[in-house]
């Protein structure tokens, strides 16, 4: 039994622009796999090739053993897509939106009716059954997109930045639902810029930048490998750098000056904290290292060793 999705030297070009630059990865059945990266990293291009709406420029990409191709209806048949943009049908009501989509998947009318009722309950939109789309808030629209993606009982769900622009309540509801689906054995592909989202949902992530995969791994392990356990932030003028670095660097595994802040990264914070107390610096914070630190290190700024 091979992987659910296999990509080898996958490349996507739009004219002269290389959006995805020869990446390889495997996604197992039932896992939640996250693509992280800043805007323009190639995340969306990659997932669009996976769910067969964008042709592969070169390399190979298979989904459940089938080559991904824009005319591959079998892949589309078993995939649910939560798109980045809100692509609901504004001319139709909430229920009509789902009913028409059910048709596209050849779901018989009675069965569709049942699924629509269940799904509206699942995303807590029962009260909006006959509303028009422009009467919904952004959060409701996103939830409706989730419901729409589930109509065909997909084996694979592709969620392309599913919580962009949502308030915390709506975001947490969507996370809940996605976790619920994963628990039922659905394979989940997520792209996101929110590190918390990746940490909440993903078993495994890749960090993409400029079309390439920079790192792959388990979220927490990546943090530990790349950053350590703790981060110390010191807001202090640049003039003090030499003195403070001289004092603290021996206890840290890396440091960095960004704008008004001096960062120290360390695996074990005990010694450096003692030293910090000794130095008695104002404006100092200690916090656990996060995926965001990894992300910034890899995609934003170089770490000075």
């Amino acid at each position: 039994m091979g992987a659910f999705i296999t990509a080898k030297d996958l490349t996507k070009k739009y004219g002269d622009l290389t959006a995805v630059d020869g990446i390889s990865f495997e996604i197992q059945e039932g896992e939640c796999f996250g693509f992280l990266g800043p805007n323009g990293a190639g995340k969306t291009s990659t997932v669009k090739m996976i769910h067969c709406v964008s042709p592969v420029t070169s390399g190979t990409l298979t989904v459940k053993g089938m080559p991904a191709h824009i005319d591959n209806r079998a892949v589309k048949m078993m995939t649910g897509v939560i798109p980045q943009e809100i692509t609901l049908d504004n001319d139709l009501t909430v229920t009509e939106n789902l009913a028409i989509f059910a048709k596209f998947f050849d779901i018989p009318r009675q069965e569709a009716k049942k699924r629509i009722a269940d799904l509206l309950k699942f995303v807590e939109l029962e009260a909006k059954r006959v509303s028009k789309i422009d009467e919904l808030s952004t959060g409701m629209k996103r939830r409706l997109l989730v419901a729409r993606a589930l109509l065909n009982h997909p084996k694979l769900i592709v969620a392309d930045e599913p919580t962009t622009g949502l308030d915390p309540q709506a975001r947490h509801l969507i996370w809940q639902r996605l976790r619920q689906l994963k628990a039922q054995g659905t394979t989940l592909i997520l792209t996101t810029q929110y590190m918390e989202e990746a940490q909440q949902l993903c078993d495994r992530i890749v960090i993409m930048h400029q079309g390439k995969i920079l790192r792959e791994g388990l979220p927490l392990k990546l943090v530990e490998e790349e950053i350590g356990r703790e981060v110390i932030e010191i807001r202090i003028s640049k003039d003090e750098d030499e003195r403070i670095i001289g004092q603290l660097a021996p206890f840290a595994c890396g440091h960095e000056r960004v704008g008004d802040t001096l960062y120290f990264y360390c695996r074990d914070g005990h010694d450096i904290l003692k030293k910090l107390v000794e130095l008695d610096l104002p404006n100092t914070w200690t916090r656990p290292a996060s995926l965001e630190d990894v992300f910034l290190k890899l995609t934003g700024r170089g770490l000075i060793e």
Partner: protein
Amino acid sequence: MNLSYRTYYVFVRNMVSYKRFVVPTFLVSLVEPLFYLITFGIGMGAYMGYFGGKPYLYFLVPGVLVSSVMMSSTFECLYGTFVKMVHEKLYDSLIATPVSAEDAVAGDIAWGAFRGLVSGSLMMLVAVVMGIIPVSVPSLLLLLVLMVFIGVLFASLAMIVTSVSPSFDFFNYYTELIITPMLFFSGVFFPLDKFPAWMQKLSEFMPLTHAVKISRAVFSGEYRAKYLWNFLVIFVLEVVAFVIGVRMMKKRLIK
């Protein structure tokens, strides 16, 4: 061409959304022909005397029938499709389902043709109420069939324009430089035989000219073999425009 029965689902989607616009569009579809028939037919017709032994309205109605089909299906596949593609991103969500890009575009062409048929039928209704009636029931039915062919033709041509259009403004080139002149140079309002020879030749290259000829012949029950040629022109052009329109739209939709 990855066409399937799902084209029909796209048509149904348009039908469901149409519910909300049906009253205004019916009103427009009724007022426009009335305007033509009253101004040209009755107002101007009074000065025109008889055309081939019949009042001018008998000349005018078959031409206006097909040109109203042309207008409706053209505008549906220009503005209607453009809004769905660019503003509503509807196509993006369609092609993520088992509906292919070809299905989606073909469904919209079928829809444009249907809108043309509706306009043409309403026009026919107005004409019948005014007492301008096709010669027989088969002739009436044949006219309806003809409207479908003309609808698909102009919907497909409009699709080609939409596939390369950066914005709404671009459609003006097509409507003002091609569609409007076609309305006046295809013999809808007056016979072409007083035009210089080169203009008559030119009008042969306008699909509407052929549609008007067939429509007028069928309306009065004058079935002659020579009209098969006119039909062939429409049919061939239609198939070509359909294939090119679908291909070019697919190219725009799938990046």
